[in-house]
């Protein structure tokens, strides 16, 4: 970098404690906690003893993927747009006091739907639902 600063500047710089109040890596060594240490290298430079937290220590998983509910995004993907075939989101659960029917869908911009799986929402009416490929809710 540039020329060495004058003495006064240098003195000030060296006097100033530009300290890094770094957190305590040593604690990662000192705080063992219960059970076997996890495998792998430390990935953070600091820990605080978990024992200070009153909240439950969440048990480790077994390494297996977690099951998740179907239609996780809240959409019933048995339906596509009735005209364009575009992917749409027919809600699995209606808002309080409402039901998922053609009026609800039309009120939210879906003018018709094509059944591409099963008519799980019963949009076709009746007990058995509409067949795959049926276009429903069209005015």
């Amino acid at each position, binding site marked *: 970098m540039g020329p060495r600063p004058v003495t006064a500047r240098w003195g000030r710089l060296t006097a100033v404690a530009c300290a890094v*109040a770094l957190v305590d890596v040593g604690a990662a060594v000192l705080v063992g906690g219960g059970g076997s240490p996890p495998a792998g290298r430390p990935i953070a430079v600091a820990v605080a003893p978990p024992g200070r937290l009153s909240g*439950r220590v969440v048990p480790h998983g077994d390494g297996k993927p977690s099951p998740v509910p179907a239609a996780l995004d809240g959409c019933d993907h048995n339906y596509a747009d009735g005209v364009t075939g575009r992917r749409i989101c027919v809600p699995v659960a209606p808002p309080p006091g409402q039901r998922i029917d053609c009026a609800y869908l039309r009120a939210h911009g879906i003018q018709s739907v094509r059944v591409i799986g099963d008519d799980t929402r019963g949009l076709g009416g009746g007990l058995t639902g509409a067949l795959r490929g049926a276009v429903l809710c069209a005015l």
Partner: protein
Amino acid sequence: MLVAAALAAMAGQCAVLVAVTSAPARAATCPDGQWNAEFHAGTALGGDPVGQRCDTEIDFDWSQNGPGVTGLGLTGYSVRWTRAFTLAAGSYTATVTGDDGVRVIVDGQTVADGWGDHGPQTFTATRTLTAGAHTIVVEYYQAAGGAMVTFDLAGGPNTGGSGGTGPDCPAGQWSGLYFPNRTMGGTGVPRCSAAIDYAWGDGDPGLAGIGADNFSARWTRADTFAAGPITITATADDGVRVYVDGTRVIDGWNDQGPTTPTATPTLTAGPHTIVTEYYERVGGAQIRVSYTGGGDPGPAPPPPGGCTSDCGGSWQTLGYQMPVRSVHASLLHTGNVLLVAGSGNDQTTFDAHTFRSTVWNPGTGDFKDTPVADDLFCSGHVQLPDGRILLAGGTAAYSTATANYKGLAKSFVFDPVAGTYTATNDLPGGGHWYPSLTELGTGDVVAVGGLDQNAAGNVATELYDHAQGRWLPTAEVPQTFFFWGLYPELKLLTDGRLFYGGVHTFGNAPTAAGSNIYDPATATVNDVPGLRDVNLRDQGASVLLPPAQAQRVLTLGGGNGDAGADAIASTDLIDLRQADPHWQPGPDLPAAKMYVSAVILPDGTVLETGGGRHLRSDPVHEASIYNPATNHFTSVPPDPQDRTYHSQAFLLPDGSVAALGDNPMDGSFSTAISVYRPWYMTRTRPQITAAADVFAYGSHQDLTADGDIGRVTLLRPASVTHQADPNQRSVDLPISAGAQTGHLTVDVPSNPNLLPPGYYMMFAQNTAGVPSVARWVRVP
């Protein structure tokens, strides 16, 4: 007293060159207590050393004559010193000064990093070390111009002599040790406390083994101060002593009734260690110690000034639209914005294998299409220390009537300057559809959550090593095998842990408590109690309130699209500086909503905007500004556009806020861009006219600005999707000198967990609270 680590007394150098020929020189063994110095041609410590010698200390000025190693001149060389220490357990402070780059590595971990071209700058790091052998490495390089380097190590067993160090306590707390004698002898009983303020009377401190009489205690706290005098006040019955950095400033070490001595030491700007010692013989017992100043990390003063009239600001829908269905937005240090659609939640596009992104220039309205090889729709992303954007995960398959989406295991780095993507290695833990990426203070990145390649919940914690530029094998990363759900917002705390504030995407909370503290170093997850409506936080917002030093998080709104629930208006607050933090209710939002965007503004407030009441429907246009200083929402004009699912809002460098995207039930996607101009956009703005480009940790930076400056902040550029940016933060830079003169000095925090490395937008607010436009600085 501080126990120096046997370096201070050492002088001179043992400049015995073992090898100075052009042939590679191998390290020789140096005597105990000396440094093994290896000299390299070039500034990168590359190749074999061209010289080696033993140094008794590191204190060199090579500006005039160079290091005296054959093959090295006045510029373009580097040196690595290595030394083994045998240390007692205690707290040690390493201080290194260099022109140019310096860094200190303790037992393989970089603790002080000033690796960059600069004039003489000092960096220090304080660590608690276990008893035994430790290896310290000091690395240095000289680019050009002046050349000097010094190193010192100080510290040791706890100040005050016997008794050892206290417990490790959260930042800002006193680390206390209590002894069943008046001399602080033996092993103490630890306890952390937010304050020393006890009136035990004839009782005892409430610790096993410590009686009501004949006991003593020592409390230690590290705090950061502005330059100038502070006042320390101690009230004790009986004896009390107070030390600042090992110097006794209060000495009332005798039997006495309640007595209140004071001291007014003058401190340099920066961190200092305060130690209080106390003993009780018989009778009444009390101790109270307080001091003025301090506060990092800790609550910062509220921002200066503030709007008093015509405060609403305004929205404008831009006259052009974005050319992609942007689901992911990252502000780049070039001032442009990377907008990533991938397939953009359009299965036709996915089936056509057409994955889009574009770089938007908000100043000109230009877009530059930048295709990407894989579908980064529903990836996670974060800025890396060098300003590039790391993107990971995405969509491997769309959902069907019977199966959920499948996660992609691909990862890319986007270079803002070149405008190109480069693939990294795949995510070792498999696919991640909806992962969250959080940068650590080390510059590495943790990724968790999302659906894997089989549409199941991915339980792997992934770690991107930014120095190696790759994702590490999962076996090298501590694993909880805990499923964090989708887009869980994990925020980095000042002690390196990660905080989950309850906001995620889709359905119920991934954890029973709805909020957690995750220590990635030990793979420990704790519940954090008190968050309300834990299963109604689907696509709410969670924001680390400004300033980040205060370590307070606000969680706002949310819903549960899977359950069809109404969105909520409730907010909750938590102070993470507490040893055992609990959520507290906050004020309600002006309107109940999910799909909430919360954007930190450069005046120290938070804009909340966008939203909907139900799954991908019933838009909520109301917007408001939350003031952390008053804990109050003030309504502002609404975004004229619907902003529900797949919306993004983020701060631009001029202080305005861009809002994008909307993907309602009918599958359409809004490409309209709206921009909110807060109140200060119509005021005369201060300007930062001069500042360095690089702000090193712990450095003091000179700025030139017009007007009287009341506050300077660093705001991290957004990298946001699904309204969530886990890395959003605003960090105060305390003004240590010259605010009223146009030339001021600000103190850069020394804790990388508070200020993770990367580019930041620096704003200066005048005393009326009006912020400048941003000036980009890099925190290396």
